[in-house]
């Protein structure tokens, strides 16, 4: 069952156009969203979170259109990014305290569980955290309100190989708990390690939306690795 659907989403900037972006996310699966820098990954994610106004197209979660149901949908989804941190000089305890009052499904037990699992010290401030811990802190907030869908923008960027592996392992654990994970990346090995499905975007257009297995079958030549396929596709697109 598709839990998130994007249909013909368009957004035009003076220098860039997101062109008829359509894809869907399968419930309880990990979907990797890959594309080179500037391909439109962040713009698509911003559209999915209603942070930008699209020129056209439709976005729906759980069969409900985002337009007009934003508040209700945001209760059920979580967002995390590796590039932004919130309130860098406030204590994590304080940020969590304020955040919990917005969510009617906040699960204090889950919060305590993930705090321990991620090894987060509530008395620290985001400015004192490593990049990996910042991503985990954002994930902590998302998971504590029992988000059914996690939208993660470049969660592995800036992480060392060990932290990246740890995070990808966490995605697999979340999947086992029925959480749908959608993460953007430009690192192909991230996809190889955990993605069930791949959405490939190039120059603002979706070039592929299929299972990881089918992606290699449909777009790769014999013996080509995922990275080699992407590199060739990008070269051909020039």
């Amino acid at each position: 069952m598709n839990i998130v659907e994007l249909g013909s989403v368009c957004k035009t900037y003076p220098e860039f156009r997101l062109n008829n972006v359509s894809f869907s996310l399968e419930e309880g699966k990990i979907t990797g969203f890959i594309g080179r820098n500037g391909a439109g990954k962040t713009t698509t994610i911003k559209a999915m979170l209603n942070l930008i106004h699209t020129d056209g197209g439709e976005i729906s979660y759980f069969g409900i259109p985002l337009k007009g149901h934003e508040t209700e949908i945001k209760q059920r989804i979580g967002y995390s990014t590796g590039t932004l941190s919130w309130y860098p000089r406030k204590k994590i305890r304080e940020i969590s305290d304020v955040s919990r009052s917005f969510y009617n499904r906040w699960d204090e037990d889950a919060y305590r569980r993930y705090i321990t699992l991620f090894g987060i010290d509530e008395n620290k401030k985001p400015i004192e955290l490593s990049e990996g811990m910042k991503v985990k802190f954002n994930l902590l907030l998302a998971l504590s309100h029992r988000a059914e869908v996690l939208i993660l923008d470049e969660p592995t960027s800036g992480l060392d190989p060990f932290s990246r592996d740890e995070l990808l392992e966490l995605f697999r654990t979340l999947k086992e708990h029925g959480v749908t994970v959608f993460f953007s990346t430009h690192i192909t090995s991230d996809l190889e390690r955990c993605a069930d499905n791949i959405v490939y975007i190039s120059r603002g257009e979706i070039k592929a939306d299929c299972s990881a297995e089918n992606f290699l079958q449909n777009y790769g030549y014999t013996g080509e690795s995922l990275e080699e396929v992407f590199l060739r596709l990008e070269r051909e697109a020039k």
Partner: protein
Amino acid sequence: MNPLLRKEMRLSASILSYLFIVFGFMTLLPGYPILCGVFFITLGIFQSFQSAREANDIVFSALLPVAKHDVVKGKYQFSVLIELCGMMVMAILTLVRMTVFSGAGIYRQNALMNANPFFLGMALLIFGMFNMIFVGGFFRTAYKFSRPFVTYIIVCFLLICIAESLHHIPGLEALNAFGFDHIGLQLSLMLAGALLYVLMTVLSYNKACDDFEKIDL
């Protein structure tokens, strides 16, 4: 307390917004343009907008399960709260000057404005201007605040200069009333200031909601 105001107070606010309420005590300064206290209180609110921008507060708020106009409401509620705290300090001290110190020579021999209900009306007018020019201006981009703040500074000091010197114009001496002199006129002017404050705040809030809705974050 609603969650957004709580978020503003605990996460977005700069400590200076609370500390600068103390500038309301400038109401007691003799021989000083006491309306400047209002400017300093708004300067404290400005600091919160600055620190909120550095903390990615607007994007954080927009990702919360709230309507976009609620993000605007939170900022207005916080600004109004600080302004009303400042007004409370100024109103109490004005009452002290109107009663206990009504005959004090140090206040009587003052070329500038006296602390009276007209002063409070002007303070409300300046707070209203801050909400309209600065807070409303900020939400045109939810990022740039230099131009709205500079514009507000110019308007604010023009108003302060006018208000502090108006009573020197023949026929307007009653504006500088001491004690409970000309109390009918004084209270009417304060009420007019309050009405303008409400009007400017509500109108700019509605416009800010429309502007914020159109912004790409």
